[in-house]
């Protein structure tokens, strides 16, 4: 059953050929069989899943079911889920049972998608490999020596290994697109503000954005339709009534202007990855698109700018973890300061502490102008690069990451080398633009993604391009041999 497309699953569910209970049990069985080796789930919720599957079956029988009713889903462990542990893969929240649902969780409950569990991730979404999880690293289903990417590494791995048909992720600096690329699946980060941040454990609020992680672009469009929508509880939620992200899927690509920035094919890009990406762009050209050379001259300023701004926001957001209201509390605090500083020292992992510290430093007296304000100015320069480029083209294409998935342990001793794994994805978050990763081939049996970036609100166009590409290619249909 895990080899069916979502469309086939939905048709069989609606025709009564299979039930949601059977489908959900099939995935729970696969999780029991395979997740020990992959460590892609932090929490599996079999009772909740079966309860929701039964309700979905009732809807399928009484005619109130929608397209995705009865299709199970795995939520990244950053989405608050009422009554379920929501750890953000941190010791700090190891004991935290969320008392309410994130907006995204509410939306998908309304559709009737049984929750299989919560997926592993980098602690507090701060990382590019899912190795900083308190629960240990997730392994890449294509190669157990390799990382699945991060921070939504568990989500990408469960889709790649067939341990969930659909998954949710979040992307602050590349955390949907880079793991999607490393695991050979499709993932889209929508325009900032498209999906409500309510109930998502905050990392960097002016960057955080949730999106779908699926096998195909068509499936991503359907899941995004269910996730997106105005929510008054998120002060930056956008009102875009009637947006249908699946509406343009079948448009031909004739006349599409594809911008290819020279800066995305320069030093540091693995030549084999470059070949895969250029071949993918050639396929899109074959379908009638026109290639335009564009320039993003400030690309190299994006990484330092991001690593000032995101940690600065994190230092503020994560001040809520104080050992008082929820989360880890140290034993026998001798006074209030000791309670704060020791609970935080014990509850946070090394990378989270580094980012909080560096963020607090960047905001401190004497450094604010040199670091924080400077980084905000660079943010505008990076955004303006995109604005100028989109005067000449409809979308921009390039690599998602400079290399295929690296090995577990390869970059853990050198945090700044890990930061550079996101050099192509971070500019998109600085600008708040939508970006998508689509499977485009392999290098040494490790998947490679094509990155498609568009102007604000061009999600339907990005999904259209990826869908048309997937009509001509089968990279997204491939599965690692041992999980078929």
């Amino acid at each position, binding site marked *: 059953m895990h080899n069916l497309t979502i469309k086939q699953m939905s048709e069989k569910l609606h025709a009564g050929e299979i039930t949601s209970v059977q489908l959900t049990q099939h995935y729970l069985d696969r999780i029991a069989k395979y997740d020990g080796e992959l460590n892609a789930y932090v929490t599996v919720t079999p009772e909740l899943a079966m309860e929701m599957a039964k309700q979905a079956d009732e809807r399928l029988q009484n005619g109130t079911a929608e397209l995705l009713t009865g299709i199970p889903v795995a939520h990244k462990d950053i989405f608050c889920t009422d009554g379920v542990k929501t750890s953000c893969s941190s010791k700090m929240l190891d*004991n*935290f*049972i969320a*008392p309410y649902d994130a907006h995204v969780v509410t939306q998908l409950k309304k559709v009737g998608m049984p929750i299989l569990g919560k997926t592993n991730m980098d602690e507090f979404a701060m990382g590019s490999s899912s190795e900083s999880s308190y629960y240990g690293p997730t392994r890449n289903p294509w190669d157990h020596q390799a990382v699945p990417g991060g921070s939504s590494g568990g989500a990408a791995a469960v889709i790649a290994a067939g341990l969930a048909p659909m998954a949710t992720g979040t992307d602050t600096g590349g955390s949907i697109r880079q793991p999607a690329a490393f695991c050979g699946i499709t993932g889209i980060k929508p325009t*900032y*503000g498209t999906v409500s941040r309510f109930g998502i454990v905050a990392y960097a609020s*002016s960057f955080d954005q949730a999106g779908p992680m699926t096998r195909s672009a068509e499936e991503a469009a359907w899941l995004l339709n269910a996730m997106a929508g105005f929510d*008054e509880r998120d002060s*930056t939620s*956008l009102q875009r009534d009637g947006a249908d992200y699946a509406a343009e899927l079948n448009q031909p690509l004739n006349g599409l202007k594809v911008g290819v920035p020279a800066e995305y094919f320069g030093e540091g890009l693995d030549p084999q990855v470059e070949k895969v990406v250029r071949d993918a762009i050639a396929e899109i050209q074959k379908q009638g698109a026109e290639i335009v050379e564009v320039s993003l001259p*400030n690309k190299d*300023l994006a*990484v*330092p*700018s991001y*690593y*000032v701004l995101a940690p600065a926001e994190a230092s503020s957001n994560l001040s809520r973890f*104080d*050992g*008082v*209201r*929820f*989360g880890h*509390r140290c034993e026998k*605090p*001798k*006074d*209030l*300061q*000791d309670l*704060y*500083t020791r609970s*935080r*020292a014990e509850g*946070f992992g090394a990378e989270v502490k*580094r980012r*909080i*510290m*560096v*963020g*607090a*430093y*960047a905001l401190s007296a004497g450094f604010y102008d*040199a*670091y924080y304000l*400077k980084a*905000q*100015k*660079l*943010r*505008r*320069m990076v*955004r303006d690069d995109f604005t100028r480029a989109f005067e000449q083209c409809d979308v921009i294409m390039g690599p998602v990451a400079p290399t295929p998935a690296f090995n577990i342990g390869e970059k853990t001793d*050198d*945090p*700044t080398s890990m*930061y550079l794994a996101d050099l192509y994805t971070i500019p998109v978050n*600085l600008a*708040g*633009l939508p970006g998508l990763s689509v499977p485009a081939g392999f290098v040494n049996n490790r998947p490679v993604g094509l990155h498609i970036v568009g102007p604000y609100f061009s999600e339907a166009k990005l999904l259209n391009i990826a869908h048309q590409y997937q009509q001509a290619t089968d990279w997204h249909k491939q599965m690692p041999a041992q999980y078929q």
Partner: protein
Amino acid sequence: MSLGKTEVEYISRLAAIAVQDGEVDEVAAKLSNILDLFAQMEAADTQGVEPMAHPLDQVQRLRRDVISETDQHEKLQSVAPATSEGLYLVPQVIE
């Protein structure tokens, strides 16, 4: 830029994260590497560029001044490490 013990202690206070004596050197080295990354920003000419705080040019929405939250303090406090009579308990702050 290379940080020393004094700076690490200062940053530890700013971040409200205790740093053990044995950790100071490693924390200093890794934070210094990150500050080296920040130094790459210096060369960029940002004269006349307005800082950008947020991707959306959007004003904050206003809502009607009506009660929208229900009283859930028992549920929300159920995840707290220590409470009493609806209050959060912390170590004594006044002698």
